[in-house]
């Protein structure tokens, strides 16, 4: 008997047992992280032939490697012989991968190169390669895979909105290229992974959970998310397919507010955008800034931070982030982005450390709820805020006040679709 997801995910509430149930977790790792599209990393992390990084996709450890100048491969970090992990560091450069158990050697494309004492095998060599992601597509250097190849094209998953969100970020770089090679920082949190897509895109909590930050320092979040009339113009948006945004654009009071800096400090940057796209587009981009959005199921476009949500177990996860670096800007500009990232995100930051505590408190609150309580009106989590005032535009996107739970509902709506799909 599997879980009846339709009973546990409703339009206005979800059952809290889904945030700690080991059976639900196992289903998610298969249906969301193996059968669907997931974000792996960025091509700028592996610039040279043989560069690789390891990454965790749900419970599967993978190696993302630059196989040739053009080609990126995502391989299972698991010897095809007896299952030994091939890489145990976070990054490296090799011309091949060699297992330390029986010295099987694999090319960067995952094919077997050499097996000691090969006369012991009748099996054709081409059947002994590493498991590889069956589908891999990239957009602006963002690498996505579908491990088992059963999902449709990436375009069906990302939709126009997913591409537009990535483009909106990358277009802010004067060359159109961003670099994500400053390394990733892992924030270990004792909560279910699904609490973070919600937290990263929840506009309601900002003035409460982050009150200590806004009392302490001037931040643009005061104008877009904390209080006052301006906030009323920010929007919570559900684009469908679980892709969601807190759209701050209408609330910004000045250009470059998202960079926490005035224009005279980065005049050459502004000129570079103008030269590339013309005055009108450039001026608008300087107002709009990067998106604050979550692409289902594991990629947070956190303005000038990129984060990956990594499930570890039903009550354990990692929020792994790096700083966006632009190409074609000064060293000072990119250093500023590093310092801005350190202030905002991570274990010692001023902002997401308080989100981590909140997620851990939720986990503590819900850990005793039982699936069987669903029909006893017990153990539900309410996500109805703003249902009565949502608007739907011509593309089908739903939006509402930035404090409304439109984003949270968008995540869970996609979750329900996937968990109840007929395989």
């Amino acid at each position, binding site marked *: 008997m599997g879980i009846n997801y339709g009973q546990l995910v409703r339009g206005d509430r979800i059952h809290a047992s889904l945030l700690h149930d080991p059976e639900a977790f196992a289903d998610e790792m298969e249906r969301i992280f193996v059968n669907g599209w997931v974000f792996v990393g960025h091509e700028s992390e592996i610039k040279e032939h043989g560069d690789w990084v390891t990454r965790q996709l749900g419970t599967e450890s993978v190696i993302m490697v630059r196989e040739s100048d053009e080609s990126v491969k995502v391989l299972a970090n698991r010897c095809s012989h007896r299952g030994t992990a091939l890489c145990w560091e*976070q990054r490296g450069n090799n011309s091949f991968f060699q297992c330390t158990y029986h010295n099987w050697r694999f090319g960067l494309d995952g094919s077997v190169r050499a097996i000691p004492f090969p006369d012991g095998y009748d099996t054709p060599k081409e059947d002994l390669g590493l498991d590889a992601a069956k589908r891999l597509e990239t957009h602006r250097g963002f690498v996505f895979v579908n491990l088992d190849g059963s999902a449709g094209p990436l375009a069906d998953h990302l939709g126009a909105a997913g591409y537009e969100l990535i483009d909106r970020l990358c277009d802010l770089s004067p060359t159109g290229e961003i670099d994500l090679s*400053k*390394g990733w*920082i*892992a*924030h*270990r*949190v*004792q909560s279910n992974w699904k609490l973070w897509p919600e937290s990263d895109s929840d506009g309601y909590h900002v003035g409460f*959970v982050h*009150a*200590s*930050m806004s*009392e*302490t*320092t001037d931040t643009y979040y005061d104008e877009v998310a904390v209080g006052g009339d301006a906030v009323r113009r920010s929007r919570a948006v559900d684009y469908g397919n679980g892709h969601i945004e807190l759209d701050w654009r209408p609330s910004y009071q000045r250009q470059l507010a998202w960079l926490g800096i005035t224009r005279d400090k980065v005049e050459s940057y502004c000129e570079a955008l103008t030269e590339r796209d013309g005055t009108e587009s450039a001026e608008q981009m300087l107002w709009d800034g990067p998106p604050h959005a979550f692409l289902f199921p594991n990629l947070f476009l956190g303005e000038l931070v990129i984060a990956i949500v990594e499930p570890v177990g039903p009550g354990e996860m*990692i929020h*792994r982030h*790096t*700083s966006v670096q632009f190409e074609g800007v000064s060293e000072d500009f990119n*250093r500023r982005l*590093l*310092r801005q*990232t*350190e*202030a905002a995100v*991570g*274990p*010692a930051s*001023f902002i997401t*450390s*308080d989100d*981590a*505590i*909140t997620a*851990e*408190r939720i986990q*503590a609150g819900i850990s005793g709820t039982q699936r069987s309580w669903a029909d006893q009106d017990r153990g539900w989590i309410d996500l109805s805020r703003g249902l009565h005032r949502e608007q739907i535009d011509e593309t089908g996107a739903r939006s509402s006040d930035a404090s409304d739970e439109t984003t949270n509902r968008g995540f869970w709506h996609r979750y329900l679709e996937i968990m109840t799909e007929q395989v």
Partner: protein
Amino acid sequence: MTSLQLKAEVEDFLYREARLADEFQLDEWEALLTDDFHYWVPAGRLEGDPSEQLAYLNDNRARVATRIRQLKTGKRLSQLPFSPMRRMISNIEVVDQGDDTISVKANFVIYEIAAQSTGELRIWPGQAQYRLRRVDGSLRMSSKWVELVTAELGQRNLTFLI
């Protein structure tokens, strides 16, 4: 050769700094800092140029003041309540002495209770590198760089003064 007197003075300073941090005596801790204080906890070894790396924590003097102000709001959820904690400091070495600067390395282990959420005991082993400077006759700290043994593994919340 470090004089016993200097060594004793350095030890007194480090023990006091540790106790003030453990007890969240934030103003007293901040009073130990020079105006150019630099606070750094990298996600790896204490190597390379801090300004070029993405770290757990990389505070100049102004940002560490913000950090302390945030802790003092009474609304900093990740330190509400403050973590009960104690640290041991050992293997103290004066590694360099200039005209006005003393460089010191010491190992530490911090025992922290995550009283804000799970209540678990968290253990933070590492090495701290301090630069101390004499200001108006007494020692002040001009930098504290902390290399965690677990630096590359990721961390749980690190919102106390490490």
